[in-house]
């Protein structure tokens, strides 16, 4: 592959920049619901994505045929696309730490060392464990893995071979009684191997899911109000990703997101340091770990907010040039046939120095919110996401469990209201995907965070 790509870089004539990205992805999905196998899917998708840059315009083309003539054809298509879209003379790409050599996460127990039979057996066992509880009406479990192998070559010097391994595990249970039904879910996703993924015992996880579904079934709905809440690490991650992270993606900034022109300003409580990082921190390799981005740039740990001050946007090479900074290594493409876009990686709030117990004890009336569900956010940082469990807090004590709700607010207002951040930290979005024209594997997390937000209730 090295010789082929190296020799084809010379075909980019009449444009300022060319990029060849070979990407092979081997996928496996095993899914069981109600004791029945719903998927045993093995997929192999491979090809070359070709990109050219000229006068501020990009052309992109892709081919699944790995032969010189097909790739040359794709290069010609990309060149003509770039020349058609490019209207700005003088546009350039920003400086970056271009990768050369081989990059792979450290993995002790590779997924390939475990047979399909073992993976299937584990999924069936966990699903049947959830279903074994008498109050469970329905259960599902799935395992998914993506094994990537890439070569990223650019006309200005990147020569990277990138290997990656990202497994995920999901459990789902529905409890039902008197015509009412409610679900609970748990999921895990990491960058790494088998043992790393299953640091939590799947059987215990199954029990957690089943009991939570049962408890939620009997729970009441909270009333709607603006309230003091404690977000768990997963929700802190979701807030960081959905509500803040998207508004600092430089392409959104350029099109007028609320963070435009706010670098250096105080946008959050000084207790908040918010990071988007390609490398992982805090123990295991988080699910959104990216060592080299899809423009061949070595990724970095980017401090978006430092002690409450907005410090940086998230950049690819093009936006880095416009802002006169270096690329932060946020250009990512999901598959060979997708072009790199500015995407997040592992997005989180740094831990503080409080304990969760202290944080609860200081609340007169409020909620502890746990379990991130889906979420959406807006250019103005207004967000909405669903939460599985809400525990009432009264007079400094944790009280009854309430049905999951949606919470919303303006994310920067919410971050301004942060008055306590816990020592305890974890990544908790590793089974998550972010959708922005194409998918991206991301992770997020944080400490427990106390703040004010709106709770959508029933009264």
């Amino acid at each position: 592959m090295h010789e082929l790509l190296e020799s084809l870089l010379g075909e980019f004539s009449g444009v300022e920049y060319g990029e060849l990205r070979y990407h092979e992805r081997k996928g496996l999905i095993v899914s069981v619901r109600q004791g029945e196998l719903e998927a045993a899917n093995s997929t192999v998708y491979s090809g070359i994505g070709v990109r050219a840059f000229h006068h501020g315009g990009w052309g992109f083309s892709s081919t699944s045929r790995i032969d010189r003539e097909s790739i040359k054809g794709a290069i010609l298509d990309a060149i003509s696309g770039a020349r058609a879209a490019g209207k700005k003379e003088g546009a350039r790409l920003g400086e970056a730490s271009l990768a050369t050599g081989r990059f792979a996460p450290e993995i002790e127990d590779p997924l390939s060392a475990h047979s399909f039979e073992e993976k299937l057996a584990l999924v069936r066992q966990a699903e049947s464990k959830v279903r074994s509880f008498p109050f469970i009406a329905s259960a599902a479990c799935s395992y998914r893995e993506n094994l990537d192998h890439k070569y990223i070559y650019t006309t200005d010097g990147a020569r990277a071979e990138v290997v990656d391994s990202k497994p995920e595990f999901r459990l789902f249970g529905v409890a039902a009684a008197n015509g009412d039904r409610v679900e609970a879910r748990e999921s895990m996703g990491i960058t790494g191997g088998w043992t790393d993924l299953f640091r939590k015992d799947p059987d215990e996880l199954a029990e957690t899911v089943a009991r939570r579904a049962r408890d939620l079934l009997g729970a009441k709905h909270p009333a709607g109000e603006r309230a003091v809440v404690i977000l768990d690490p997963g929700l802190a991650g979701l807030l960081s990703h959905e509500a803040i992270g998207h508004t600092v993606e430089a392409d959104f900034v350029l099109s007028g997101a609320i963070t435009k022109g706010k670098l250096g300003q105080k946008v959050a409580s000084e207790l908040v340091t918010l990071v988007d990082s390609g490398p992982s921190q805090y123990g295991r390799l988080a699910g959104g770990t990216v060592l080299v981005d899809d423009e061949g740039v070595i990724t970095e740990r980017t401090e978006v907010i430092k002690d409450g001050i907005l410090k940086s946007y998230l950049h690819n090479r093009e936006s880095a040039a416009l802002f006169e900074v270096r690329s932060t290594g946020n250009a990512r493409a999901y598959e060979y046939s997708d072009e790199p876009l500015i995407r997040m990686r592992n997005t989180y709030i740094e831990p503080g120095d409080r304990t969760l117990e202290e944080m609860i004890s200081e609340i007169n009336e409020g909620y502890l919110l746990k379990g991130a569900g889906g979420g959406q956010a807006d250019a103005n940082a207004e967000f909405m996401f669903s939460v599985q469990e809400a525990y009432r807090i009264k007079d400094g004590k944790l009280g009854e469990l309430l049905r999951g709700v949606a919470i919303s607010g303006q994310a920067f207002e919410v971050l301004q209201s942060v008055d306590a951040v816990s020592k305890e930290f974890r990544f908790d979005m590793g089974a998550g995907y972010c959708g922005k024209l194409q998918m991206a594997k991301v992770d997020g997390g944080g400490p427990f965070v106390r703040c004010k937000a709106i709770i959508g209730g029933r009264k």
Partner: protein
Amino acid sequence: MIELLNLCELAVETALKFGADEAEAFLTRGREISVRAEANELKLATSHAADGLGIRVFSDRALGFASVNVFDEQTIEETVQMAVSLSKATPQDEHNVLPEPRPIKTISGLYDDQAQAFGMDQAITQMEEMLAAARNYDSRVMIDSALVNAAIATHAVMNSKGIKAEEQRSLFSHFIMGMARDNEEVSSFNHRFDSARRASELDGKKTAMEFAGSVVASLGATRGESFAGTIILSPDAVLELMIGPIIWAVSANNVQKGMSRWAGMAGKEVASPMLTIEDNGQLAGGACSASFDREGLPHTHLTIIQDGVLQNYLYNSYTARKEGRGSTGHASGGTRSVPAIGPTNLTIKHGEQSKEELIGEVERGILVTRFSSSPNPVSGDVSGVVKGGFLIEHGKLTRPLIETMFSGNLFEFLSKLSGLSRETERLAFPQEVGLVSPYIRIDDVAITAG
């Protein structure tokens, strides 16, 4: 041009040779061009092939599936071998039987004869028209991104029971998304999209102006109030709020596995008598129509809810076989996974009143033009934020709203409908679902202000 059915045949025969009892090959070969704008400017022109082959096999009624995007003989053989080897390791299931062929009627209008000639230049011209239309509408309009896309794909499916079908379809689509910005004030995001089988059926300028109008109208939004009142959902909000949970509840797989609130409700009232929903995968020229489904069976024109009474669930052949009945032709999905269940072109029957009359009768409520939520399809619980909305007071729209939420249970909402508009809008989300819907009014909803 490789004969797609020949490749399917190679895959099916190879699977039988390797020891599968039954085999199915689903193949897509497509070419797609698209032009994208970012931050108000033309940014990217792409062209690429979208190819895939999915092989489903049953060995002793045990499932295996493998998929690949490279079509040489050796790769196909390796992929088939993978599917067969998976099927040797999976549990038996008596319902794992491939469907028998049924007569297929060719649906007209799914391919535009002009599609081959539609080139990058035309896509760029259309994009420039869209951008200009949005910008000229109002200088405060900010376009985050816009897309013009043209795709041609041939789909072929063959199985060892004698199913053999192939069809070429074209699909043109566009999308525009952004906000309005007035000095420091940034409105909510909004977007508009449309898709059609024929290029001439799309009007980019109209889509762009509707988008621009919606974001400008949402400037100056202020917080709402908390009350129990009426909501009127626009077709966009209907798609966001109602369609997912309804389709979940009528998908036979969810019904059979205890995940549908409507299990055992066929023939019973599940909604207000005002509500009638149909799904028609045979609609001539429909953006989600096809002459056959993912398994090679014809789509149907199916009534899902008639006058509030649940009529039919959606089946693929696996779920149909479990109940000893026929598939409704709702096998869905692409080449990368086993057939799932999905809708095609949905229509919610319109009502008699005009949209203005629906609003005029509301003492206090919200017109919801865009809603952001993650409705829980199992319980029907929904709680979300009004992203585009207007307060209604004494029958009149008084002001745009932000940070206003409403909550409740979608399945309960369905029995609290108090009016459907005469006007309908067509929304076609590429490759997923088409919807024609009126404005829908629902009474007695809990609304929370921030």
